[in-house]
């Protein structure tokens, strides 16, 4: 058997590589599953119990409300003038 003549250092490297690969896959799947769980939880509204969670869900769905951001105002433009407009600009 050629295996018996493998250099011990090389064998250790190979084992390490295999373990690293397995661990990598396990961690990746775990991470992906965690994100998927979060996503599902968000969708079914579990995190709606906290404001942060609520904001995160709304943000990920692109329906976040204005909140208390002071730097920028809301999207609407005051057009009271335009409604009263009767003549053209000069």
């Amino acid at each position: 058997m050629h295996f018996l003549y493998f250099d011990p250092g090389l064998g250790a490297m190979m084992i390490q590589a295999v373990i690293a690969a397995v661990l990598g896959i396990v961690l990746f799947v775990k991470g992906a599953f965690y994100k998927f769980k979060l996503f599902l939880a968000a969708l079914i509204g579990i995190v709606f119990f906290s404001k942060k969670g609520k904001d995160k869900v709304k943000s990920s769905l692109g329906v976040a409300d204005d909140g208390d951001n002071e730097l920028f105002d809301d999207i609407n433009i005051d057009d009271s003038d335009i409604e009263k407009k009767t003549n053209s600009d000069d």
Partner: protein
Amino acid sequence: MTTKQTHSSSFRDPSGYIFTDQGRIKRVINPIYFKQYQALKDSGFFKTLFKSGLLIAHEELSASEEEIIIAPESIPFITYPYEWSFNQYKEAALLTLKLQKFCLEKGFSLKDASAFNVTFHNGKAIFIDTLSFDFYEENTPWRAYKQFVTHFFGPLLLAHFHGSEVLKLISNFIDGIPVKTVASMLPFKTKINPFLYSNIHLLAKFESKHNEDYKGEAKVTALSKKGQLNIIESLYNYIKKLELKEQSEWGDYYSKTNYSDDAFNLKADLINGWVNQLNAKTAIDVGGNDGTFVRRITANLDQALVCDIDNNAVDYNYKQIKQNKESFITPFVLDILNPSAAVGFNNTERFSFLKRIKDFAPDATLALAVIHHMSLSGNITFDMSAAFFASFSKHLIIEFPKRGDSWVERLLNSKGEFKDHFNFYNSSQFEDAYTKYFDLVEQHDIKNTERTLYLFKVKSGLN
């Protein structure tokens, strides 16, 4: 018919063009755009936007069957998207969305959403392309949606995930960062975010598919006005909440310097006294951090430009401008060792920093605590920096930290075995080089520091 020469940046829109007449910017409107212009004018659309300061105001100078000529309000210094801090960029994006929503409500639509249609004036973002508004056609999607993503949403997302430096990419991609490039640079988790998936990743896929459609068989999809408004509002709310994750290099600079309160006040008072003495109306603070020293000037400045390499310092300055409703300060991001170049077709579409600052011709240039960074970090000789400042300054207020200053010591020590190469860095050689280009008006040591303030006047004929 006018024979005025078109401005080098105004060739893309058949609706009209801008030209310069005795130093004043004017805009010609071609007959192809008369209907839209008249409708925008008659409905009070323009007036509302002028009043709210969201669109540059204009005055109609003449109208004939061949052309209408308008003169927009003058903007003293144009900054480009690649010179904006993160929140400035956000404001420009939000302004574009705000305008599109307003347009839709009034029966119009933005026909383009270029970031170059926006600049900063009177302390806020302002839309400067008067001819960007067109009639809304029922059930048609927003024609400029993809342009909005490539000019605004994509760059802002990239900055959110990778830092504000990414915003400089727009200087290379003046037609917007391709959606495919944006998608490829975003982390995987953005693919499981329904909002980002639909606005970026899906768009990138559609774009690839569309690029392969050589026969032009792609179907034109319909989208209700309500549907479009929902998309605009969701983009607005998402962008409004976007933030940077990075820490500032210079954000708390003044707490790190070796100034005592007295020395700091003395420096501010000296600068203020000199600016008043010069009766300056315009100024630029190069490496001006968060605008602290400009705010200490009591002279009635019409316009003060404050530029700095650090996004967060500029952002902090910008936030103060918004909060204090200051209209005379224009902040922007600029690396003085690599100022913005001229870009675009024929290298004349977007002007270089040097061209713009020479045209602006500030009465006073402030270069405080910047020369040691130029000389010791950038290896710029005194002769080079003096020539640079003399090319656009009438008066220069410059602070020279001597070799005993802790920042200078730190920079010199970082040079290792090349430290001796920087023996030129001393007051005497500094004065020799600068007096070739400037006349020394006054100099003052700042007590209890290793720093000297100089007031120079440029030699006649040099700029």
